[in-house]
């Protein structure tokens, strides 16, 4: 734990990450969701001021409020995507690695295929095939994420199953499924934890990017990528509309990346067990 605190950059990242999570969860207590629909046209495109800290958008809504409201959706999407990806990837990787044989070979070829299509483009194609909508977008990115975790976990499981305690458990007659779930997975999950914290930083970029292109939510729902799309039209007149949402994405991504780096450094000695 103290390793996490030692490196100032990592500490900053962790604090900001926690702050982002807090904003996402408790943001609506401070900023009313009604802001998203409080269209105030005489007030549109105002530069940052004392009343509107980050200015107003083309509908007259306070940009700071919009950004705070957006974090809720973006962070929720981020956690859902990585959570589901890890759940699927870890399960597949553990069973595949432990049971071995043809299933393992087949699954590895399948992950090879998924790695051959650039992530964003695969997500784009899936989202296009499934149709517009937030859930389809989240599903599309989950499909892109799971192969990575499968690969990592499988590698770990291959090494782990050589260890003596596995033979001992088998000798006791304990079923394979139980061994995998109760023993193998908890012991091999550390690299996956590291990777998924780093992925949190990456997934939000993909999610915001595809939202920017028009997938996911509708135009009125506050979402950081969408805010940038809206701001793009007025980029030269009202640069704050594009600058601040993007800065928010950058800060969120950077914070989780830093935290992920820190977790990796903390868990690293343990990886060499």
């Amino acid at each position, binding site marked *: 734990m103290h390793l996490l605190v030692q490196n100032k950059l990592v500490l900053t990242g962790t604090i900001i990450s926690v702050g982002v999570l807090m904003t996402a969860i408790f943001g609506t207590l401070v900023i009313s969701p009604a802001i998203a629909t409080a269209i105030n046209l005489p007030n549109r495109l105002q530069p940052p001021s004392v009343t509107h800290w980050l200015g107003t958008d083309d509908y007259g809504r306070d940009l700071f409020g919009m950004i705070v409201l957006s974090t809720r959706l973006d962070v929720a999407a981020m956690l859902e995507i990585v959570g589901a990806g890890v759940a699927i990837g870890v399960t597949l990787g553990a069973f595949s690695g432990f049971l071995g044989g043809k299933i393992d070979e087949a699954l590895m070829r399948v992950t090879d295929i998924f790695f*051959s*299509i650039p992530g*964003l483009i695969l997500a*784009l*194609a899936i989202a296009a*095939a499934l149709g517009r909508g937030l859930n389809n977008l989240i599903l599309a990115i989950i499909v892109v994420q799971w192969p990575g975790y499968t690969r990592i976990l499988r590698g770990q499981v291959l090494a782990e199953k050589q260890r003596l305690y596995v033979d001992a458990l088998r000798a006791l007659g304990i079923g394979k499924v139980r061994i995998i779930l109760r023993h193998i997975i908890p012991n091999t999950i550390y690299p996956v934890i590291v990777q998924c914290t780093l992925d949190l*930083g990456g997934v939000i970029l993909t999610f915001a990017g595809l939202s920017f292109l028009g997938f996911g939510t509708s135009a009125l729902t506050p979402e950081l990528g969408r805010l*940038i799309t809206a701001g793009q039209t007025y980029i030269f007149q009202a640069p704050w509309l594009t600058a601040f*949402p993007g800065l928010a994405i950058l800060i969120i*991504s950077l914070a989780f990346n830093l935290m992920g780096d820190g977790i990796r450094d903390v868990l690293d000695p343990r990886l060499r067990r």
Partner: protein
Amino acid sequence: MKLWEYVLRRLFLLVFVLIGVTLIIFFLSQVLMDPLALYLTDKTRIESIPMIIAYYHLNDPWPIRYAVYVWNLLRGDWGFSRSLSEPVLQALSQRFPATIELTIAAILWTLVVGIPAGIISALKNNKAPDHISRLVALTGVSTPVFWLGLILQLVFFYYFAQLGLPHLPSNGIIDTTLVLNHPITTITGLPVLDTLLTGNWVMFEDSLAHVVLPSFALGFISLGIVMRIMRSSMLEVLRQDYIILARSKGLPERVVIYRHALKNAMIPTVTVAGLAIAGLLGGAPLTETVFGWPGMGRLAVDAIGRNDAPLIMGFTLITALMLVLANLGVDILYAFLDPRIKY
């Protein structure tokens, strides 16, 4: 195993992977969506629909449909773009050179800035240049590429123009009015190369100016990754015994670094290259949209707005092909560079 045997094995694997990719795209375009959508345009006449269904075997069970689909892919029939009313392959190949120019320029940024920066960062470990480049690298992987593009446009186009400074163009691949006076002869299809080869200096300068911002935006993320890898592998190499030996032989530091350390430090960097290329290809649609770049990526993005699925699928297929070939190239390069690898 010899090198050519390794290459042959990898090519075999490549074919297998491509089959898998076509399966995925087939599933997306013909199972999740109406199979007819791939071959209809707004101009297709209703009477010809039964003929189309028969020709592409669209009423047959899916294995037959898949076989017909792949056979047509190999023959160059990738479906018809609904909104453009032209064959998908034709639409993609027209815009292919622009995307290639953008991607190559982005790779140049990554290598020319990333590798030296990584080396310097390792040599001046924990001093100011190291901290700066580490921060840049970390920011690089956290930056949304489309936002970076917009900010670059804002600063280098708008604000520079406002301040009266020479500014870079924000849109397109060449100046469409300027080219009327200085027409470009198409050799490769890439304006920068074509103008260079024909001595069309006005347009060379123009196309160069146009490619600077988009390629930097696209390359910024991979730049960060390469910087980090270069730095950590260089640090690893500099700790090795043979480096101490080289120094104790009295070799000048420059020789130690460039002739001995660098070659070995490059190896992990090459392995990351595959990932970096995937990132570049993925970032292309976003960058091309922001900068109005007439490439395949923007074609796909426009196709989204127009619900033109065949174009999106064709784009996915071609980028997968590019990535697979690039990975093959990287693997061969890797096997070539590192004599310790047993393949």
